[in-house]
């Protein structure tokens, strides 16, 4: 057998065009499969609306979503930006993005010019792989802030969760701090997605905290006589490879991969 048979067009006895076509088709199928089937949460700066759509799916189910953002500082030519932070909320074609030190930046698409950063690439990273929504009472009353923390910690431990995330109206009765001070205090905390504007009544300050992680609440010290929670939603987050069993008093466990 000839190594190269020019007349027959064979290489090592195999028709060159046939093997070439087979290899190319196999390669393209593999590339197609890995691009489409193993979809991840990485988006280019031109795909902001796709990124926002995916974020909203995750956010709606109670996932806290961090992101690794790569891009350029707008207003400079070549100053690069590469940082991990928490997605606070999407605005029109952009994200508000909280850094670990509490600063909030605006991330726009590759062609943005009004925001702080023009993104080349953004990868969304949910804090937990799986999440379960706990069945809770609509309201709670605690004698102190610390009592609330202890209650939530117990709840987390009882369900073997890695994270406990809560969304609620927090009413601080006879708080020493003004609504603005409380707002600033919580808003700077990294793993609290969003804080609504404070409402002040005669003896209480009410703030709506959206997706606040327990450890961040624990590290925030608030002096008040008592605390009431309204419109409470609690999520249990699990960061395990395997999907955990459904905790008692909770809805079904949802994996973020199921949402993609």
């Amino acid at each position: 057998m000839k190594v190269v048979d020019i007349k027959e067009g064979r290489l090592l006895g195999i028709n060159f065009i046939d093997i070439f076509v087979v290899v190319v088709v196999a390669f393209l199928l593999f590339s197609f499969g890995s691009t489409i089937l193993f979809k991840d949460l990485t988006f280019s700066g031109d795909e902001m609306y796709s990124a926002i759509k995916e974020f909203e799916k995750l956010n709606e189910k109670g996932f806290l979503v961090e992101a690794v953002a790569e891009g350029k500082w707008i207003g400079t030519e070549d100053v690069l930006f590469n940082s991990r932070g928490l997605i606070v909320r999407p605005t029109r074609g952009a994200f508000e993005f909280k850094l670990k030190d509490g600063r909030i930046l605006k991330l726009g698409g590759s062609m943005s010019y009004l925001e702080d950063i023009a993104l080349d690439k953004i990868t969304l990273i949910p804090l937990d792989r799986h999440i379960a929504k706990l069945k809770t009472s609509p309201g709670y009353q605690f004698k102190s802030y610390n009592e609330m923390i202890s209650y939530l910690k117990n709840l987390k431990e009882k369900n073997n969760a890695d994270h406990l995330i809560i969304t609620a109206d927090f009413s601080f009765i006879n708080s020493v701090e003004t609504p603005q001070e409380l707002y600033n205090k919580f808003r700077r905390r990294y793993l609290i997605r969003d804080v609504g504007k404070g409402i002040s009544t005669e003896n209480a300050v009410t703030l709506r905290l959206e997706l606040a992680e327990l450890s961040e609440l624990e590290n925030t010290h608030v002096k008040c006589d008592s605390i009431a929670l309204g419109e409470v939603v609690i999520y249990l987050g699990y960061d395990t490879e395997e999907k955990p069993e459904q905790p008692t008093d909770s809805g079904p466990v949802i994996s973020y991969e199921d949402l993609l």
Partner: protein
Amino acid sequence: MSSLSVRVISRIEETIKKNFQKSKTRELSLLILSFLENSFIKSKVRKTSFLFVMFYPGRFWSKIDKLNKRFNLEFFLDPFILFPLVYIGFVGISTYRPSFLATFSILIGLISFMFGVKIARKSEFGVTALENYSSRLAISLLVIGVFALVLDIERAGAVPLFEPFAKKGLSVSYTMLASLIVPGGILAISVIGVKLRNGEIGLREARVYALLTLLTTTMLISLVGFRTQIIVSILGCSMAMYFSRILGWIEIVSFFMVSLFGISFFGYLRAVEEGAGIGILEVLGRRVGLTLSIYDTLVNLYWPFGVNRGSVALATFSSYFSFIPGPSLGPRTIVARMFGVYDISMTSTLFGTVMLDFGIIGIMVFALILGLIIGAAYKATLQTHSAIAISILSLLFAYVLVGIETGLVDFNVFMFFFIGALIILKSRIPRHY
């Protein structure tokens, strides 16, 4: 002066020919070309394509053939008519109304192009250069292009068509080599056309093979995710089918419409995804409007003689080869920077970058040269019906039509024009006075 330059070129050509004919490189190249051709002829891939002939819609196509014969509108596809028509249509669908000066400069460009086509028609053509190698060249171009495409996608880590951010990982060299798929496909269709003309295959086989080639070529080139290449592939392949008499004008017009609708539809989908409230028919008009508005601004700023004195044209080469002195930015990026835009490049129509360099004088010369090349390729096609002439005309004319919007400023496109023009020039029968 002119006869001296012709003598110098002929002497250089003869020297190269003499040395090349004796060289080992020539022997090796011919061996590789023969190997690929023999391999294709005896491949299962070729044999499998016979199966598709069964699906040929004979009745349906005979009706279209009758219509093609009944309404003969072939003159529309003459570059002398089609180019100005498409350009006027381009300005017509725009949401932006260009100024008098911009309209005037476009008219000058169109007249120069038509003048170029008219002059080129006086040429006479004999045997087209490289015609004997056409099928081998087609297979080689496709193999090299597909090989580069695979390497490019492997380097990018994903298929850019499905994962747009992977475009940033593409290699410029591989992408340019991958663009050889388009001339390869067009040449393959032209070869099929020649086989049909010589009676080696029937019309139904020719149509099925040509359409399969069009689909494969377009599908492959679409993987890198550049719309221009996709449209050039559809237009170029369909033109090659038309000039090879595989298809009639109805099918060609349908391909044009499908291409236009395709651009609108994908633009519309993207606009909707990005939250823009825009109608499907508005997409093209807006896009054209933006390009025309950029051109309009350039004309009003630099209309008599331009401003950059050739540096934008030079950027086509210097942005690709670092050893060539000149701007490191591509021509479209230079235009974008002029408007204070840093992150994207901007197109300024076929004449925009020429206007920037040499003003209206530049447009006249540039359009004249384009007209000469396309006109000569058209005449060579009509006279010789050779695969090489048909493929050169189809490829270059498709690039010119798409270039009305995108401009002709890419290095690989320049090379296609340069090599195409050389082959056509070489096939010309010299005049003896």
